[in-house]
């Protein structure tokens, strides 16, 4: 154990820095608002706090419901040793999703509103309820670890007694909201790129969550065995990896069928950044790990198993980010790349997850007794090439993702400029523009100016003033904003008329233009405006 000390301190240092930076980001987010902390905008309202913290967080916690169902419903008892760590991972995952949501919501203190303010037509409403209920389910599934610690026998009996209904509820709720996260995007057919948009998004989200959730269980077991000196349940993980193969295969088949049905293969003909990202996701995140894990040699090899599972998880993350960020970029009005504060918050949440897991392992009975690592499980022959194969694929994926992010960033930025040239933005403030508009359609003849306004004389006034729109508006280039943009309200003409006497001469009123330069000055020519007498 001692030889791990330097490593532990290194990671503790990393964690401390991450938490400190995250705390600063938290202060900025809640002190100065979303605009100051994020790169979100009207043109791109959802960023990585939705794409990663919620979509990825929920998906990677999917191991929770699959493993509990396997053990409690299908009675496959031999998977029991990994139930507790998996439930713990899922529980922490969902808590962090909730915390992440508090950052993303504009009014986080109203997060409870869906409880009493219902809209059953909203996918978000359904997701909110499912996630909330499933977090409750997970806390029940997690509670025995705490109850045992404090030797609370009666509540423990109650929780054990309701295990089956709780597990069934967990499976149903998970099925619903894992798929519903995909349903969220069904309403943006024009914004989400055709390589990802599909009526089957809920199915894809569900299947990929199962594959990634189980892969996450494998990864979490490896990390735990390394960090806490636990024995690796290699046999179990191998069996899980076979389920991953089936889930990935199913995903691939449905995906291909769906794409051919929608004629989406045509989208792969053009060399777009989307095509690139899609192919990386499918080849490195689905196809290669599926093939690798289907090979007994890879499953038997520790590195092979770990790297393949990692490929699945990374591919999954890429898929969720593609659906939520890069895939919608083309349909949005603004280019998005997360701010460092957004990244800092996400990093902090991930770190909090690791720390909480470590604390739970330290103080609760997460792992079964007597499963300390004695020695690495030695396997007579070590199929090395296989390990290199999977690691190579992993490295390639990493490089390609980094490259892809860059490409897409530039591409998107370039594309973002096009509409700006096409469309003369702005409100047509320059007069030539207004004239041009009139000449195109020749409709100035239709101009129907408001009638004359008479301002009653003030105390020492030489007479009432009658304002005529006709003599003030250039019929060829009418611009109401000249006066109504500032000095004179447009809706309250009568209220304006009550402005009495010389106040009307002010720079905020008639004097704004009648200053002797733009038009004759208010002090120059009384009869020009005031009717005699």
């Amino acid at each position, binding site marked *: 154990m001692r030889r791990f000390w330097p490593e532990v301190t290194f990671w503790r240092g990393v964690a401390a820095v991450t938490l400190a930076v995250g705390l600063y980001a938290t202060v900025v987010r809640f002190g100065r*608002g979303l*605009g100051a902390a994020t790169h*979100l905008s*009207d043109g791109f309202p*959802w960023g990585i706090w939705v794409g990663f913290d919620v979509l990825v967080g929920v998906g990677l916690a999917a191991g929770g419901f699959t493993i509990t*169902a396997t053990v409690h419903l*299908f009675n496959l*008892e*031999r998977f029991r040793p990994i139930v507790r760590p998996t439930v713990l991972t899922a529980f922490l995952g969902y808590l962090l999703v909730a915390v992440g949501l508090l950052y993303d*919501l*504009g*009014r*986080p203190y*109203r997060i409870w509103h*869906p409880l009493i*303010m*219902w*809209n059953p*037509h*909203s*996918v*978000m*409403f*359904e997701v909110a309820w499912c996630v909330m209920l499933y977090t409750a389910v997970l806390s029940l599934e997690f509670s025995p670890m705490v109850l045992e610690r404090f030797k609370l026998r009666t509540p423990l009996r109650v929780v054990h007694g309701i295990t089956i209904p709780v597990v*069934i509820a967990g499976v149903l709720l998970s099925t*619903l909201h894992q*798929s*519903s996260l995909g*349903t*969220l995007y*069904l*309403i943006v057919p*024009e914004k989400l790129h055709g390589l990802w948009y599909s*009526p089957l998004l809920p199915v894809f989200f569900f299947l990929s969550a199962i594959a990634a959730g189980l892969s996450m269980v494998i990864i979490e077991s490896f990390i735990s065995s390394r960090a806490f000196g636990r024995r690796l349940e290699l046999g179990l993980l191998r*069996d899980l990896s*076979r389920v991953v193969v089936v889930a990935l295969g199913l995903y691939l088949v449905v995906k291909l069928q769906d794409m051919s049905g929608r004629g989406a293969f045509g989208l792969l003909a053009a060399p777009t950044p989307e095509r690139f990202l899609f192919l990386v996701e499918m080849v490195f995140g689905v196809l290669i790990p599926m093939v690798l894990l289907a090979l007994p040699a890879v*499953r038997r090899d520790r590195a092979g198993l770990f790297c393949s599972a990692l490929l699945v998880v990374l591919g999954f993350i890429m898929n969720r980010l593609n659906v939520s960020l890069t895939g919608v970029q083309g349909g949005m009005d603004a280019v998005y790349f997360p701010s460092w504060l957004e990244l800092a918050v996400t990093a902090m949440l991930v770190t909090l997850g690791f720390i909480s897991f470590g604390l739970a392992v330290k103080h609760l009975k997460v792992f079964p007794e007597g499963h300390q690592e004695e020695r690495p499980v030695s396997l007579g022959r070590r199929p090395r090439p296989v390990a290199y194969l999977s690691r190579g694929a992993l490295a390639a994926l990493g490089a390609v993702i980094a490259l892809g992010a860059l490409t897409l960033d530039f591409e998107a930025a370039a594309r973002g400029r096009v509409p700006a040239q096409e*469309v*003369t*933005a*702005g*409100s*047509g403030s320059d007069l030539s523009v*207004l004239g041009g*508009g009139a000449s195109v*359609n020749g*409709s*100035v003849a*239709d*101009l*129907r*100016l408001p009638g004359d306004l008479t301002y009653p004389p003030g105390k020492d006034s030489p007479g009432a003033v009658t304002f005529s729109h006709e003599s003030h508006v250039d019929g060829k280039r*009418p611009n*109401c*904003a000249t006066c*109504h*943009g500032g000095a004179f*309200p*447009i*809706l309250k003409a009568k209220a304006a008329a009550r402005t009495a006497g010389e106040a009307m001469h002010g720079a905020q009123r008639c004097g704004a233009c009648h200053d002797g330069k733009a038009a004759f000055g208010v002090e120059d020519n009384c009869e020009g405006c005031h009717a005699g007498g």
Partner: protein
Amino acid sequence: MAVAILTDLTRCIGCRACVYACKEINGLPKEEAEGLSARTWTVVERRAGLNVRRQCMHCLDPACASVCPVAALHKTPAGPVVYEEDRCIGCRYCMVACPFHVPKYEWEKPLPRVQKCIFCSEKRLREGGQPACTEVCPAKATVFGDRDALIQEARGRIEAHPGRYVDHIYGLEEAGGTSVLYLSGVPFERLGFPTGLDREPYPRLTWEILSKIPNVVGMGGVLMFGIWWIVNRRMELERRDALREGPAKGVDDGEEGDR
């Protein structure tokens, strides 16, 4: 009566009376506007030689209202799509879902709201008036009225001046129909209007899935319970048999499961 606005882009002279009337009645800052924002709910943009007034389309079956988890946005029977800021949690799904890119957010505020045109619902319509923007338009380019009547009016104009208009009433069918209708002399795709939108209301896309939830819960619940019931019973019987026949031959331990 379902109210609507018909904006005839061939008549718009770009004076921006509507923009300032809107800002005035809604107490929005009177600044030069670069497109729609939380502080500008209607705007006149220069596109393809026309002055294009943009605002919320007030869809007949709005995506924004259907996606809102707390029903902060809803379509009133009279026509306007309105916003109750006291309910809003700030998830911004409405902004993501709107096919017309209309709802905007107060990003710079610590406690932001979603903002968009609300058809002067509270301030004007309730009292039998018309929206500020249509009232002040000096060219009658944007007019208020009953939706069916305005559609008739639009059809009449296209028939009477076929050379002046493209033969399309934007908003008649887009996204299942909207309460804001447009006529133009230039094809709408050149004006930056989203074309190729579904003719069906957008909420149907998600409702088709959501409406299946009761089935999933019911059938899934029974299936799960059934599996547990059968498997458990079998295991129990096996255990009993094993006890009767003496020491078990050992359960498959699963280690080295591969071959």
